[in-house]
């Protein structure tokens, strides 16, 4: 990113918005470059390369608010864009809660170097990217006669942004990310062609899991699906593998947000300080993990990112409170959304926990479903394994789990010592008791 050019453009936009009559403004300019290579069955399927940039602005004028974005950054286009944006704002209704963050909240950013940028990214050649994508799939050649198709992909991204607010905030971010995936399809019974995949992402290229491991896991996860069927409906423990547990817990983000609370759409409203889960439920939001996929110095409002407990031993500690809904609720803003979520680990490994269960369902895949943030009810499609006496005895699919988060969180009975570090939601293996599975 041409640092001075974009920062200067930001200052120019800021000045222009002020000249047009806005009392306050916030803005961001982002530029990113991405390259991806997809292979299928030993051949390049797609090569995609792109550079993009965009500007977003928030206008606060005469007690009114609007937000805008554009990717046309030519000054003559921007002049018109900004004029219209400020004009439009004047037609809205006044909203006393719309204002920039208290500048005190900009203070206290992490002093730790989060190391989110891999300087080696710019040295990767087109050939190296192709080699990596090809190698991911190549490990599976001849590994299973039933393989119909193997798709593999390698991609990387470099992004940089500036963020400014007219009451003094100035931020700069630069980060890289690398991702690789393998997806396989194999011939199953009849017309069924089970699929499985593995996906890994990291801030630094050297932190990516090895290609062979990625490929082998993808194939194993596909072979797992062979012969899968539903079993009769039953209430029993739900065992979640570490890489899959976030699929159940991320749905808490919405009811934990101040906007849902203020809009009376959260089953967690008015329950701060209350015990809403079992003693094993301890989750912390930590924005300062070095090379973390959700790490940050500040959020979209410019608030300095700080570690904060969400649940401690089942007690609800904090809601995600952005500036606007914080103003409406009279709460001090803390963060507009999650960064890295850390579930406090337990003592045993996933394998040890699995071996200790008499009868349970291990969920390895989610398929659709939804949760109602207002009531806490959920109903989700699942696939995985029936566990009997600590062993995987039958591959299952086409089943649902249903219940209410109020009960589910209280029924968390074990947490593993194996957090999944390849995601911003670092979940370990988890076991929830008394979950209703519906099948045949």
């Amino acid at each position, binding site marked *: 990113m041409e640092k001075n050019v974009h920062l200067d453009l930001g200052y120019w936009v800021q000045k222009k918005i002020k000249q047009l009559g806005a009392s306050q403004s916030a803005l961001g300019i982002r530029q990113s470059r991405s390259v991806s290579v997809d292979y299928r069955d030993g051949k390049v399927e797609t*090569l995609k390369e792109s550079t993009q940039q965009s500007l977003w602005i928030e206008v606060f004028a005469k007690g009114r608010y609007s937000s805008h974005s554009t990717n046309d950054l030519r000054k003559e286009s921007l002049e018109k864009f900004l004029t219209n944006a400020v004009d439009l704002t004047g037609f809205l209704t006044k909203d006393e809660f719309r204002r920039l963050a208290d500048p005190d909240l900009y203070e206290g950013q992490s002093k730790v170097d989060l190391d989110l940028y891999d300087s080696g990214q710019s040295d990767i050649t087109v050939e190296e990217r192709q080699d990596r994508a090809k190698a991911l799939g190549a490990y599976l050649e001849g590994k299973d006669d039933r393989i119909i198709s193997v798709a593999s992909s390698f991609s990387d991204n470099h992004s940089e942004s500036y963020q400014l607010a007219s009451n003094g905030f100035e931020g700069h971010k630069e980060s890289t990310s690398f991702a690789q995936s393998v997806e396989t399809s194999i011939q199953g019974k009849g017309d*069924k062609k089970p699929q499985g995949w593995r996906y890994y992402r990291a801030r630094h290229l050297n932190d990516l899991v090895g290609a062979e491991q990625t490929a082998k896991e993808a194939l194993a996860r596909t072979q797992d699906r062979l012969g899968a069927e539903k079993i009769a409906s039953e209430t029993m423990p739900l065992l979640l593998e570490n890489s899959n547990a976030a699929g159940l817990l991320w749905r808490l983000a919405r009811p934990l947000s101040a906007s849902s609370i203020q809009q009376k759409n959260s089953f967690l409203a008015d329950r701060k300080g209350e015990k809403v889960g079992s003693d094993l439920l301890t989750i912390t939001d930590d924005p300062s993990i070095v090379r973390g996929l959700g790490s940050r110095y500040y959020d979209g409002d410019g608030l300095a990112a700080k570690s904060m407990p969400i649940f401690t031993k089942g007690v609800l500690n904090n809601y995600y409170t952005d500036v606007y809904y914080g103003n409406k609720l009279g709460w001090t803003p803390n963060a507009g959304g999650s960064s890295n979520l850390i579930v406090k680990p337990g003592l045993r490994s996933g394998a040890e926990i699995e071996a200790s269960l008499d009868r349970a369902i291990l969920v390895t895949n989610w398929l659709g*479903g939804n949760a109602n943030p207002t009531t806490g009810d959920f109903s989700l499609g699942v696939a995985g394994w029936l566990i009997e006496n600590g062993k995987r005895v039958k591959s299952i699919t086409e089943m649902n789990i*249903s219940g209410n988060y109020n009960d589910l969180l209280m029924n968390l009975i074990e947490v593993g010592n194996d957090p999944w570090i390849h995601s911003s939601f670092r979940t370990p293996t988890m076991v929830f008791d008394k979950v209703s599975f519906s099948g045949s």
Partner: protein
Amino acid sequence: MVQMSRRDFVKVTGTGLALATLPGFIRSGFAGVGAGDNPYNFYFQRFGIDEDMIRKVMAEALHYGGDYCDLFFQNELSNSIRLQDNIVNSASTNVTLGVGIRVLNGNQTGYSFTEDISLASMKAAARTAAGIASGSAKAAPQTFNATKLMNYYETEISYEDVGVKDKVDMLQAINDDVFKQDARVVKANVNFSDSENYILVVNSEGGIASDYQPMLRISVGCTAEEDGKRENNYFDYSVRDDINFLTEEKLKRLPREAVARTVKLFEAQTPPAGEMPVVLAAGSSGILLHEAIGHGMEADFNRQGISVFSDMINKKVAEDFVTIVDNGTNPHVRGSINVDDEGHPSEETQLVENGVLRSYIHDRISAKHYGVDPTGSGRRESFKHYPLPRMRNTYMKNGPHTFDEIIANVKYGIVAEQFTNGQVNIGPGDFTFYVKSGSLIEDGKITGLIKDVNIIGNGPEVLSRVTMVANDMKMAEGGWTCGKNGQSVPVSMGLPSVLVSSITVGGRG
């Protein structure tokens, strides 16, 4: 409510949300580019391009001898305005401008895009996309021939001519009406958004096509309280139409439906778990088709051999009275397109005809692979993406039964009426859809209400279990968006009332 006719409503404009100046209003082009009255001049001016530039960029794209290239120019202007806590207190606008350049070499795709529509930037992007091939240069076409298109979404008024003040008044009136409906309502949210998408597709075979794609969405959500319990629900419309779509009647229906859908949830229960007959009510139940068969019929998955439907063309998959189409030509329906994003005219594609699987949904690559005509289904989210075979409006045609006959046939089951989302694994064919609300059937009669339950089944199995189809086909009214490979496109769906004899309902107990 707004006390003015629709015509008046659009005439009483304040300052528009316009972010770009239109030299005039335009519809899809019909005439040849070489004609004196060049319909593409509007688009050429809008993007600051001419035929010579296009040829130069194509020459760059074919520098290494790709089989084919296309340029997809896009300019989209979107606006949204929101009411919350009784005031219209937030609005946003977005401008998207750019060109995507694709080079095909057999089944292989090279893709790049630029937001800077200058010759130099386009040539650089073209050279990047060209890298998919490794042969000798090919020539760009000398002339371009217009693709003849129909217009399935004639409009009279641009959203640039609709005033903000009018939108504010409209949202405010809807909000007031929400609270008049029921004393249990404690919160209301009203959102209105519009967009105008201008696209121009030019390819190395000399084809050129353009389209103006309008879209409107209006949604009303509310939360109600009763005896310490809260429920939330919504109602929305989304169409390819102008502001005149919103008649007085529709503006009154929005708050009425939103409140009715919310408060009835207080009476609703989670149904029991297990396999049972499920009646899909006419309308957005078409989500069943989208997930159970639509995605599996997208030809990219089939040419790769990984769809559960890969070997099933011309096989009997359902009862004789089951006919399913994917259609891009329904007037003003959200998923309709005059032309796809590869420049092929839209059409009605028969997926299942009288119970027999007929055609996949194709993009250029798959149509060539199978040696068939394109189906006008090559779609993309924006110029930042390459096209893929995608659904448009997927629905089942009317059958021989009636809704009452279907209900009378069910001993114990549910009616699924309102949906929020669905998903499918196209290899095994397992799919789900989430039922926000519906009814319980006992001994052939509707006896109660149900809510918040996921339904899971297997595509081919469920198709074979469609045992009754009514004669009351209805399209969905709301704003459905389909996601695939990281790309979102607007779609719609429809269904007559249908009985699926057995499917797994994710209830409790």
